[in-house]
């Protein structure tokens, strides 16, 4: 026999293969400065991981990897995921890394973990995300930072004093992170308002999306949908942003904000209800090869079929900040030979109700589809009854980096309950990016 590595080669599965979604755990999401005001990202992520470990009996197990991230992150948390895993019940031999892609973070980590599983590099992994707007990092402003660094570099006491003598009261004002785009200086809501105006999205249509989100989430809780997707945390057993009694009449009374700049004739349509509130929380999802799941008699809820990330030029081009999914979806559909109508469930992250409505409007618009997407036919519309059937971000809240790991298992479980089918996930993200994916059961 020639000295080949045939035995090593034969232990490799047939590749690529589809990664399975086995299950998930998240903590209830909490409105900012509320139930989790004193919890750090690391606390929340560790707790969410431990709930997942308990659900699947993984205490002491070494997994292929844990990929997670946070958007609002302290500099001391540079190794947030590693520190969380070390504090969790997982084996300390489980490798980790941090990813940061704004609101797309934990859909992207799910894609990364799934891809490694597909390539046979790992057999199992956890994708996760966490964010806190209550324990957000506060930075000293740039001026103060320069003075302090200069003082630190000074060799003599006199040098230190000289450097510090340069301090001015105005420099001591801390910078609290704001939900603003660095390149436009505009709040995300201001961007969204412009997009809503450009696509003529009505206040009522936005409120309808909002009411549906709350009612669907409330009904899902009532039927125990989250019993195996969530573990209580710090006294919270449900997302506390949920308003089960939301009605169109009630929402109509709210005062709109974000008058769209550049649209003098358009009224403001966005309100505190049809925009997601600042939220704290963490979410995790367990992915694996079918073999790994089968060895442990664990369920396979669904498989990851494909994913796509797009980015748009919202700075110099005239595309909306949150419109990247409008580009990502058709590219992914084409690669898979699918149409927009070929899905049983549509899970669209509701950053703002207007965001998803603008995306849907764009797909129904022949000019947009021709000029921006290069399509002869518009993508068209789909059955809205299949949209966010167990609620989405408007009701759950949206701890930025945790949203993908909330949506992936939600869709996987819906598909599993149905027995078979296909679902589409779409998440828009700051910086003009968007991450989308297809799951099948």
């Amino acid at each position, binding site marked *: 026999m020639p000295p080949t590595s045939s035995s090593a080669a034969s232990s490799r599965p047939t590749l690529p293969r589809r990664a399975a979604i086995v299950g998930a755990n998240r903590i209830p999401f909490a409105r900012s400065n509320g139930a989790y005001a004193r919890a750090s990202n690391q606390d929340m992520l560790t707790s969410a991981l*431990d*709930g997942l470990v*308990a*659900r*699947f009996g993984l205490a002491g197990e070494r997994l292929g990897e844990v990929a997670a991230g946070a958007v609002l992150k302290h500099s001391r948390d540079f190794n947030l995921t590693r520190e969380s895993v070390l504090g969790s019940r997982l084996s300390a031999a489980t490798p980790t890394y941090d990813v940061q892609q704004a609101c797309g973070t934990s859909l992207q980590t799910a894609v990364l973990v799934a891809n490694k599983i597909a390539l046979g590099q790992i057999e199992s992994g956890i994708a996760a995300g966490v964010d806190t707007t209550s324990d957000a990092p506060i930075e000293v402003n740039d001026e103060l930072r320069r003075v302090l660094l200069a003082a630190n570099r000074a060799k003599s006491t006199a040098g230190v004093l000289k450097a510090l003598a340069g301090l001015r009261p105005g420099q001591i004002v801390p910078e609290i992170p704001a939900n603003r785009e660095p390149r436009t200086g505009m709040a995300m809501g201001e961007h969204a308002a412009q997009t809503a105006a450009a696509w003529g999205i009505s206040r009522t249509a936005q409120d309808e999306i909002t009411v549906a989100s709350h009612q669907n989430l409330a009904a899902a809780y009532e039927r125990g949908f989250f019993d195996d997707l969530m573990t209580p945390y710090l006294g919270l057993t449900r997302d506390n942003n949920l308003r089960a009694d939301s009605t169109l009449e009630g929402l109509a009374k709210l005062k709109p904000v974000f008058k769209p700049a550049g649209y003098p004739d358009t009224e403001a349509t966005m309100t505190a209800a049809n925009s997601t509130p600042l939220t704290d929380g963490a979410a995790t999802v367990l992915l694996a090869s079918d073999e790994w799941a089968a060895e442990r008699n664990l369920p396979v809820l669904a498989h990851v079929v494909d994913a796509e990330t797009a980015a748009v030029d919202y700075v110099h081009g005239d595309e909306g900040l949150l419109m990247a999914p409008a580009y990502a979806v058709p590219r992914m559909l084409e690669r898979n030979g699918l149409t927009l109508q070929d899905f049983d469930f549509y899970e669209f992250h509701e950053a703002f109700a207007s965001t998803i409505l603008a995306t849907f409007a764009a797909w129904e618009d022949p000019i947009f589809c021709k000029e921006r997407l290069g399509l002869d036919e518009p993508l068209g519309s789909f059955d809205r009854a299949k949209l966010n059937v167990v609620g989405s971000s408007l009701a759950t809240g949206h701890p930025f980096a945790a949203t993908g790991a909330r949506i992936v298992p939600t869709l996987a479980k819906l598909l599993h309950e149905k027995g078979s089918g296909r679902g589409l996930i779409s998440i828009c993200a700051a910086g003009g990016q968007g991450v989308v994916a297809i799951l099948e059961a």
Partner: protein
Amino acid sequence: MSNDWYSDFVNSGFGKAIAGQVGLPPVPQLRRYEPGQPLLSGPALLGTATADGRVAKVVRSLLTDLGIEVHDDPNAAVGGGSSSSKVAAGIIDATGLSGPADLAEVQAFLTPVMRRIGPSGRILVIGDVPAEATSPAVRAARRALEGLVRSAGKEARYGATVNLVHVADDAVGADLESTLRFFLSSRSAFVHGQRLDVGTVPGFSGSSQGVDWDRPLAGRTAVVTGAARGIGATVASTLRRDGATVICVDVPSAGDALARTANDIGGSALQLDITADHAPATLLDHAQRHGGLDIVVHNAGITRDKLLANQDRDRWNSVIDVNLNAQLAINDALLGSEVFHRGGRIVTVSSMAGIAGNRGQTSYGASKAGVIGMVDATAPLLVEKDATINAVAPGFIETAMTKAMPVGTREAGRRLSSMTQGGLPVDVAETIAWFAQGASYAVNGQVLRVDGQNFLGA
């Protein structure tokens, strides 16, 4: 320090002196089980009441195989000491009684034993099942043992226990092994003044050959309901200690505590309201992850106390649903499913309140008495699966629930028992773990109080 200040006080040096002078009841420190602990901490006395005794032989070989010093004469000098040296156990084979006259032999053996029994010692009387006797004199003698044991229990001190085991005609000595080990060891620390029948449900089969007595549940999968806290959390860790893989069940709202219980013992957490329609199916489905189920512990329970005069239907039903209906529904599913393995064990938690009743607890008392009825009727149904069902009926157990009681009620609960203290969750858990052993195959349809011989309903 425990949370029992009285016990801490009378056991302190100063407290002991004061308590002795003013006649406060002593609170014995009970010896409790730790892995690797020898079955008995000293010599044993083993008597036989009649020439027809049929279990002394197996008791003797069990003890001598374990290297325990055994004497037939209750007045023998032991351990290189004298005829008054302390012993760890006194066991009398009182099977084969032909009438009340034979009871004098039992007395003759137990009188020196009562004087010699050491702290946390074990006095065990083994007799025949009264109901299996047709002769009035024989049945009277057999039944008399129960009165003797329950009274002796009230005289025993320093944590010694006195218990009675009935052996059915169908049972042979080997069928007794796990029961002997339980009652002699410190696993039964808070089981006192009680009676247990072995082999009374016909058709049992099983074996205690090759059991690893340090890990008697090795390789078994167990479900414990209400495992987030209290007694259930301790049951889960005790079953784990004995080798089982444990699925911990509790309501979704207790999920964070449940996750801690599960992770602490390398088990899995299942957030499930056992009263949900889908609960039995969900439970069996989850158990398939572990290749099926061997042990189910129905521990979840609630109280919604109200005087009967003020009772209302919803409150009433909520207690009956959790404490009784949910168990019935799960048992039905277990009986009809291959997922519940041959040789399976169901253990349920009744309560002293289900036997003696308790003011304000009509719903709770009803549910816990109902559990006993359920055990009675289910036991014969399980025989064809070589499975068993048994119940523990805890008395006053120190948990968060009892900590919240008014001081007077709490103190009465503790002191009005032969042990003059509350039990610990682990005392209930040890009893459950013993029922759950494969080697306990002949123990079926039993209700055992774990209550330090509480005076209520005794």
